[in-house]
């Protein structure tokens, strides 16, 4: 199967026009010795065969629709209103390029402008960009932006309670920079950033500090306190947030974060085994010209009508090249659109109701588990919809039993924090029913 529109007759006419006589002469610009001799790719498939092939492979996967899942840790199975994919599935959106030509792209431009506004509202920040790759790289870009703002400062602090993979990506992003990355330990009782340790690490050399809230363990950090401490030393606060939690938790803008970023998957994007997801990024107005990635701005057209364009493009690689604020080009436009449609559909009350149900249901489960013999809540901080449970019953045994019952998760923490080898990270979203939670408790209590 191929998607070529020209017919053999077309080929003939066109070859003639360009002075060739056979299709295989089209390799003419490639010197003989560079041409490929043998190409070991299987033959093409028709639609029927493709569907059969990839349906068969799909059958080898279990999934969170069939199996109740208690996995979170940066990827969440929230309610996705049906309307969302009816909109993102429109060819006018998903088969367009980045809206370089404003007059031919007002639809996407306006949608992204609305998305920027929603993210700014949700985070309480002044301005948001049009998206970055994912939560992890948005945190890394935040650090890079902070370093650029804090010219001369060469240290970056990151809480050990930030998602381990985010810390890894941050490390990768900074690996070629003359920068020192320092981890603030977490308090082993609270499961939160150790504020005393933080105090000790503060210095004039520190450009910024990255804290996640709720953090990887689900605990809600004392962000206002952290913010105050950092600002007292001229350090920028990068707050990595879970957008759904902002239906309930104080937003970064409220406690003075300088950059709010994170993973927007939870806003209507499918789990899809980890991607494509959505890095969101919001900051203060004064940092606008330092922002990485695309920005949509409002303007007027020749007749004075409101219009939208990509703006402040001089920050970007296609104009500024090696001096750009980031190398990003293709970003995650469709995921941003998805988030916007989801946020519009849930709206002002929906985001609160979703957050509230997450809170209620996760605390119900936590309460039941903590009363179960052999299980205890590992940390004592307040949490949103994730929490760590320690069990002496043998994690791999529990894992096996859960899978047998068709339950996915919770997540064992041993690969992320060796000291938490007896711990499981539970996540509960609004998609769970009391029945499911009770079933889970029953399976664990066997």
């Amino acid at each position: 199967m191929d998607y070529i529109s020209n017919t053999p007759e077309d080929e003939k006419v066109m070859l003639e026009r360009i002075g060739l006589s056979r299709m295989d002469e089209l390799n003419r610009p490639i010197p003989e010795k560079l041409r490929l001799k043998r190409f070991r790719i299987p033959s093409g498939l028709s639609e029927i065969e493709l569907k059969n092939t990839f349906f068969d492979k799909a059958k080898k996967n279990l999934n969170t629709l069939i199996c109740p899942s208690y996995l979170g840790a940066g990827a969440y199975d929230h309610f996705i209103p049906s309307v969302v994919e009816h909109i993102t599935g429109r060819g006018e959106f998903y088969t367009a390029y980045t809206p370089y030509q404003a007059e031919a792209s007002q639809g996407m431009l306006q949608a992204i402008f609305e998305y920027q506004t929603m993210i700014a509202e949700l985070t309480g920040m002044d301005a948001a960009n049009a998206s970055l790759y994912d939560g992890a790289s948005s945190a890394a870009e935040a650090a890079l932006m902070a370093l650029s703002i804090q010219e001369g400062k060469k240290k970056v602090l990151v809480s050990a309670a930030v998602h381990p993979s985010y810390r890894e990506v941050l490390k990768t992003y900074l690996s070629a920079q003359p920068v020192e990355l320092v981890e603030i330990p977490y308090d082993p009782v609270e499961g939160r950033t150790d504020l005393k340790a933080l105090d000790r690490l503060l210095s004039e050399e520190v450009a910024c500090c990255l804290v996640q809230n709720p953090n990887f363990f689900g605990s809600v950090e004392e962000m206002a306190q952290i913010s105050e401490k950092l600002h007292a030393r001229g350090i920028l606060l990068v707050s990595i947030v879970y957008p759904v939690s902002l239906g309930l938790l104080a937003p970064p803008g409220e406690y003075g974060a300088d950059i709010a970023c994170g993973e927007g998957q939870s806003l209507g994007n499918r789990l899809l085994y980890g991607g494509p997801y959505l890095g969101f990024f919001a900051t203060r107005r004064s940092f606008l010209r330092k922002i990485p990635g695309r920005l949509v701005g409002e303007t007027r057209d020749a007749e004075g009508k409101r219009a939208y364009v990509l703006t402040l493009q001089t920050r970007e690689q296609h104009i500024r090249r090696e001096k750009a604020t980031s190398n990003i080009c293709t970003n995650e436009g469709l995921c941003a659109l998805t988030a916007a449609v989801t946020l519009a559909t849930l709206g002002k009350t929906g985001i609160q109701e979703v957050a509230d149900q997450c809170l209620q249901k996760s605390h119900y489960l936590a309460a039941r588990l903590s009363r179960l013999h052999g299980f205890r809540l590992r940390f004592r901080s307040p949490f949103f919809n994730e929490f760590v449970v320690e069990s002496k019953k043998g994690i791999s045994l529990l894992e096996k039993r859960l899978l047998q019952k068709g339950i996915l998760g919770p997540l064992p923490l041993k690969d992320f924090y060796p000291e938490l080898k007896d711990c499981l990270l539970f996540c509960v979203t609004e998609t769970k029913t009391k029945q499911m939670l009770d079933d889970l408790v029953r399976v664990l209590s066997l």
Partner: protein
Amino acid sequence: MRPLIFEIGSPGRKGYALPVLDLPRKEPASFIPPHLLRQVPAALPEVSELDVVRHYIALSKKNFSVDGNFYPLGSCTMKYNPKVNEDIVKQPRYLNLHPYQKEETVQGILEILFELERLLCEIIGVDDFSLQPAAGAQGEFTGLLMMHAYHRDRGRPRKKILVPDSSHGTNPASGALCGYEVVQVKSNSRGRVDLGELKRLASPEVAGMMLTNPNTLGLFEEEVLEIAECIHKIGGLLYYDGANLNPLLGMARPGDIGFDIVHVNTHKTFSTPHGGGGPGAGPVGVKRFLAKYLPVPRIVEERSGYRLSRDFPKSIGKLNAFYGNVGVLLRACIYIRALGKEGLLKTAHHAILNANYLLKKLEAYYDVPYPEMCMHEFVLSAGRQKEKGVRAMDIAKRLIDFAIHPPTTYFPLIVPEALMIEPTETESRQTLDYFVEVMQQIAKEAEENPELFHEAPVSAPLRRADEVLAARNPVVKWEKKRSNEVSMAAHST
């Protein structure tokens, strides 16, 4: 003018319903101290499902797209995005996989990703691939980090990276992100890397060079082996920017012609939809001697099945919280399996055929800075038109009146008034002929009626948008006070 979503709706209106909470509800403050809770709810829209549908359908109609328009945006390979790919991805057993599911529950997707790596290795002529980078630019960054690690491991860290002056902006930007000093190599009069200049710049300080081939002028760099030799001689590595891979499918392989590290843009070559600005995917492939540096985790095949392994101590680490843009990669895999060997080659052939056919038909009307056979795209210059006061951007805007998406403009930087045209293989001769007719008419208009262009587009819902105004005092977020703009047109589209 379509109002913003914030300007429609009404307080208390809802577009969703959740299940009734089936537990006794407690006050949030009984779980979380009040000072950690939000005080003022976010001012999100308050609209019905119907409002949402009408709003976004109206917006969608103001967007050019491959599904709706000829879209010859050079360097972007805006080919048709097959619908079967969308359908296959939309199965629950792909959509709803959590990245932390145990490996035994995701053997299907791991198998596909593994297969895709193998297919890409064969298409590109390299030994190993990582699918993790989320787009071309992240692929470049990944590749350069590996280059960096390679030199560091050999105890000879280096300072500079070479890029042609015709290179895409992401190349120098990625170089800078890797801490390299970016050095531009001038092109020669044939639009190719100037080998003399290259030799002059190729010092032991140079970590390597980034190159795309065909280059951004659509011209094949015939001296690529000499370039590779020059770079390798100084211990450097040659990086392939895969944005222009389309015309090489089945024709030549970067790995065979001197490149050590390669990224591909699935959203160009392998037909994954560009999404109005992503998501894409930028898998990176390397020759065997560099494989140890690839990002982790990597998919390994074992007797018991596929597994994600982090057991690569030399790895540069992670670029993405999980494993990359799996939904995009899945589409790329389906596409490659659909086309197969013959289809891939046919794709390259028709990409080249279509571009050269257009070039031939347009050369009488526009300046052709490098008049020779091109690969999948070519660059015109509106130099002739500029003399009449009609610039490349004006021509671009005028095309919108004919329902054609403009070509890439002002890139590559080395061509003044550049119009970079890439028709792709999925367009038919009829469509190309229509484009030629329009471009001829525009050339005529530029001669006879250049004032017209300052108005263009004249039939789009929007007239020329003022980019300078936008940048002067940027408004990047809606503020309530401006809502007096909303008119009764709220319901028009």
